[in-house]
């Protein structure tokens, strides 16, 4: 059952992207570790980390696309799920520092020592074990999404209202994590990590591995989402997006349908956050900023929502652009970024991938019309107007 469920996901375009990701997972670390720094094909460690970061962003965008693109839930809370996953990982990394902190305290992280905390708060227990932290990475965002979604979907909070209350949730979490009394390091967050699973976090090998793991997990999540979207459940999701009350009158429990997608999506966002933290070396409440959630929406929109490849492409394009512009035009890059958002919404409502695939689908249809072939399924569903 599971295999047939997963097999269904592997249509051509998904296979290609998965293959590219797997290729990158091998190629980039290889070029980084095995070639000399002056070799023309050498990938510097700087770029490995940078691309690793993009991949985690891509995973976050993919997670958002599952709920927004396919179910019409515009969540402005995905930055929160991402950050929670990141914090779970960060707490593990903090505990790994052990007695190597500035004060040499074997139990307490530095920020607790100099603020005179006497003992480790209860919610830090267990995070010295990787399996526990890994569990929390999916459980905490998943549980939050489940509880939040259970209330919200049951009360039929919809559309803009849902967006606004997810934003309120993110904002409340932002404020909460800012508080030093919470025991998460306040504004500074968690930083100064030393190693992960015993490997030095700054070593080239670790960075290359983290990149490979990010690519691998992104590929896995892509297959998973693709399987979800292409199952009957996925069709129900789109049905909910397009005509919620019709779905309800057909006897589907729309709140359950939404809740499942929302929870899975939050878990994926949490995993993205957990992969992100060791690669950038810091997690702090800034990740909860409501603006971050909106940015994720924009990556997805730029790439093309309702397509699975779109958000991946969008996240990489926008962040790549941001990396380049913040260095090349430090004073003016915001104009470029802002302009991009306006132009994409105006002229590319389906996003880059959506527009491209619509164009190719038309071409194929024309060719078919000439040769009289039978139609095959479209790789990408078009987006219905809201």
């Amino acid at each position, binding site marked *: 059952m599971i295999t047939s469920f997963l097999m269904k996901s592997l249509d051509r375009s998904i296979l290609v992207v998965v293959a590219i990701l797997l290729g990158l997972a091998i190629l980039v670390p290889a070029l980084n570790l095995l070639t000399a720094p002056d070799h023309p094909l050498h990938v510097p460690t700087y770029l490995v980390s940078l691309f690793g970061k993009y991949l985690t962003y891509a995973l976050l965008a993919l997670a958002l696309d599952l709920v927004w693109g396919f179910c019409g839930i515009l969540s402005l809370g995905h930055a929160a799920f991402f950050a929670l996953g990141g914090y779970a990982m960060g707490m593990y990394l903090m505990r790994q520092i052990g007695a190597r902190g500035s004060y040499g305290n074997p139990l307490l992280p530095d920020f607790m020592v100099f603020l005179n905390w006497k003992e480790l708060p209860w919610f830090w227990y267990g995070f010295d074990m990787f399996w526990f932290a890994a569990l929390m990475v999916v459980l905490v965002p998943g549980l939050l999404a489940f509880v939040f979604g259970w209330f919200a979907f049951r009360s039929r909070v919809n559309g803009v209202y849902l967006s606004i209350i997810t934003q309120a949730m993110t904002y409340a979490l932002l404020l909460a994590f800012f508080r030093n009394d919470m025991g998460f390091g306040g504004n500074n967050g968690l930083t100064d990590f030393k190693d992960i699973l015993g490997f030095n976090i*700054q070593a080239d090998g670790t960075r290359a591995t983290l990149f490979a793991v990010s690519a691998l997990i992104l590929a896995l999540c892509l297959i998973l989402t693709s399987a979800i979207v292409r199952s009957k459940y996925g069709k129900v999701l789109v049905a909910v997006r397009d005509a919620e009350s019709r779905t309800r009158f057909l006897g589907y429990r729309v709140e359950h349908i939404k809740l499942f997608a929302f929870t899975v999506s939050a878990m994926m966002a949490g995993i993205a956050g957990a992969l992100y933290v060791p690669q950038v070396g810091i997690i702090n409440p800034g990740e909860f900023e409501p603006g971050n959630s909106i940015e994720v929406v924009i990556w997805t929109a730029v790439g093309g929502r309702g397509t699975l490849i779109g958000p991946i492409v969008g996240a990489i394009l926008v962040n790549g652009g941001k990396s380049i512009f913040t260095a090349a035009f430090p004073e003016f890059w915001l104009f470029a970024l802002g302009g991009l958002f306006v132009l994409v919404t105006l002229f590319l409502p389906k996003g880059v991938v959506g527009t491209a695939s619509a164009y190719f689908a038309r071409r194929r249809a024309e060719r078919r019309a000439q040769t009289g072939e039978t139609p095959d399924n479209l790789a990408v569903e078009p987006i219905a107007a809201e």
Partner: protein
Amino acid sequence: MNIKASVTGAFLAAVLSTTAFNGAFAADDTIKVGILHSLSGTMAISETTLKDAMLMLIDEQNKKGGLLGKKLEAVVVDPASDWPLFAEKARELVSVDKVSAVFGCWTSVSRKSVLPVFEELNSILFYPVQYEGEESQRNVFYTGAAPNQQAIPAVDYLMANESVERWVLAGTDYVYPRTTNKILEAYLISKGVKPEDIMINYTPFGHSDWQTIVSDIKKFGSAGKKTAVVSTINGDANVPFYKELANQGVKAEDIPVVAFSVGEEELAGLDTTPLVGHLAAWNYFQSVDTPANAEFIKTWKAYTKNDKRVTNDPMEAHYIGFNMWLKAVEKAGTTDTDAVLDAMIGVSVPNLSGGYSTMMPNHHITKPVLIGEIQGDGQFETVWETPGLVVGDEWSDYLPDSKDLISDWRAPMSCGNFNVATGKCGGKGS
């Protein structure tokens, strides 16, 4: 097929453009200096000025012939008040642009974010802002004030000159105010202040509704003892705070407020007439009357082509840090990190308040501490000054866990957290 082509195309384009772009910055015969200050986002308000100040300093140095016979070249990036982006940009500056030193950061969190990068890539950061201490890192030089160079002298002044007996410690809820207030609380109690005479209050960033807190301060101040507010309120929140103080009639003569994060830049956004007499503690004021400062202000106004631009303490910190770096590079004869790190310690350069500042083995510098009162024109008037220079104390003596720690980056100790009680490097030791 087609989708594959478009996707791979897009991805390759992104990869190529990044690398190609970075290639364009390949090294030539200039010495590069990285400037890592936010030009957008919430911190742009403070940090943009420092970027301009650095560009001016580099410009001036090039007019004087550059360094080691080469021109200096500034590399400016925008980390956009986004802390992980600070780390990314720091990495880019060091490993792609190959800068010899970086001047940057404002918030503690941005510094914490880039620390591992400078450590890993072995490069140099000059950090120009007053901060909470509790840190000493091999690759970082702290040219702003440690708590003992700002907070403690300010409290001493209030106790001696205004006979303050009751204290409100009001701050934004982040690590600098938290640590400073912990240190101050311990210090005040050691001076015989009763715990019930200390009120501590934290507010979020950008807090704009100060009605309740100001009225609480008034109430706290009406207990018959002379009361003062020690404010570690951060940047943006200060303007509404001072406006509320002025409107509720809290006068400096009754309840003086001494601030550690309010400088000339922040006051530029305020009508300061109702605030005359409130205090700030810094290591530099624009009003300092020395020839060096007059020259600096003149150059600054000319460089920014704006007669109203003000100077402030972190700018002076960059001025000192930059000159120290120049001197150390000249002494070492190279920009090689290890050589410069060794050469830095003991370097002494004139500061803008008429003395010399020296880089100490703990990577902090010596500075005078000035207490100034706000004037009607948005400037400060120095009302008190430490008799000599104060050495920055990275590990506070008033926190139980750090009082045994010292830092000395000279060989053979070369340790940022040496414990004098156990005689080991690395905090308490286990």
